[in-house]
């Protein structure tokens, strides 16, 4: 088992590294105004990253397929979102569908 001091150092390094990633953008933006084109690109990059996070967290668990129950739930939520359903409906439908499938024995 990992010792107390090792654990503390691991947590500290992860915390500092994560915070450094988070704070770089806001601090830079306080000093310089980004050109319109860069602005547009960072906005689009964020959407791409969020889409990738959504895709991988829908499909993958521990480098393998997460199972059909989760996928179907997210697809139901995604379709509702595409049809401009309210946010709460999207989220509850996704969770509800997956929960119902699991209750029926789908993994």
């Amino acid at each position, binding site marked *: 088992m990992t010792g107390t001091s090792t654990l503390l150092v691991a947590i500290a390094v992860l915390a500092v590294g994560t915070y450094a*990633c988070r704070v770089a953008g806001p601090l830079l933006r306080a000093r310089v105004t980004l050109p319109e084109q860069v602005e547009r690109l960072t906005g689009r990059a*964020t959407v791409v990253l969020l*889409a*990738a996070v959504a895709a991988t*967290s829908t499909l993958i668990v521990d*480098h393998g397929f997460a199972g059909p129950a989760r996928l179907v739930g997210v697809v139901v939520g995604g379709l509702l979102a595409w049809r401009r359903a309210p946010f709460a409906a999207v989220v509850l439908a996704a969770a509800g569908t*997956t929960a119902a499938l699991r*209750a029926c024995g789908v993994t």
Partner: protein
Amino acid sequence: MRALSRQVAVRPRHDLDRGLARDVALICGAYALVGGSFGAIAVGAGLPVWAPVLLSVVVFSGASQFLLVALLTGGGGVVPAVLACLLVNTRHLPYGFAIGDALGPGWPRRLVGSHLLVDESVVFALARRDEGRARAAFWACGLSLFVAWNVGVLAGAFAGAAVPDTDAFGLDAAFPAVLLALIMPALRDSPTRRAALAGAALAAVAAPVLPAGLPVVLALAGLLAGRTVRPRGAAEPGPRQAVRGTDGAVPGPVDER
């Protein structure tokens, strides 16, 4: 100066609409439950109670926290474990560049707000039309999630085995759905949609073989697919404009509801 900063500080309260409060409350509930399962899993895997609690306060990033506990208790080395988690968190770098201004003016707000940059607070800010509402959404979401997550982890760490399996509630499907719902307005802009689809496909294909975190970074290559073929100088709506709509023509799923 003082009066001005006070004005700015008060403004988000006026911008807090009921729809935002309801949506944030919904995600907070899910966060608290998943936080509870994180605390329970960490302690169940043999970590002392303080470890998941401290981790959640100072790192505040669910995916990397689950990964760290899995790698540390799985018998791997500490250095590769921390590096893998840092890789997962590199996506916060472009997040900060994209919505840094939504944190508000002044150093204290930027320094504190940076810690609250998570997928959900970023996407909430991105989905708001004007700067005041984007800022209100970011802070409301970021602060509430921070409290919900840490209370959940604390409770889970102490409750241990009594914490129910959140997968039974389908919460693992709720989080991708949250992100999808909130980026949907931006996806109605065709170059952004092409870039996002290409990036998501790349990440999904790479995820089984690459270490965690890397596939999402790789997804940025999808931006190449978003390059427009129309002549230079032609108006191209960016994701920001697409999210915020023109004259409210394309309201987002969270806006005005």
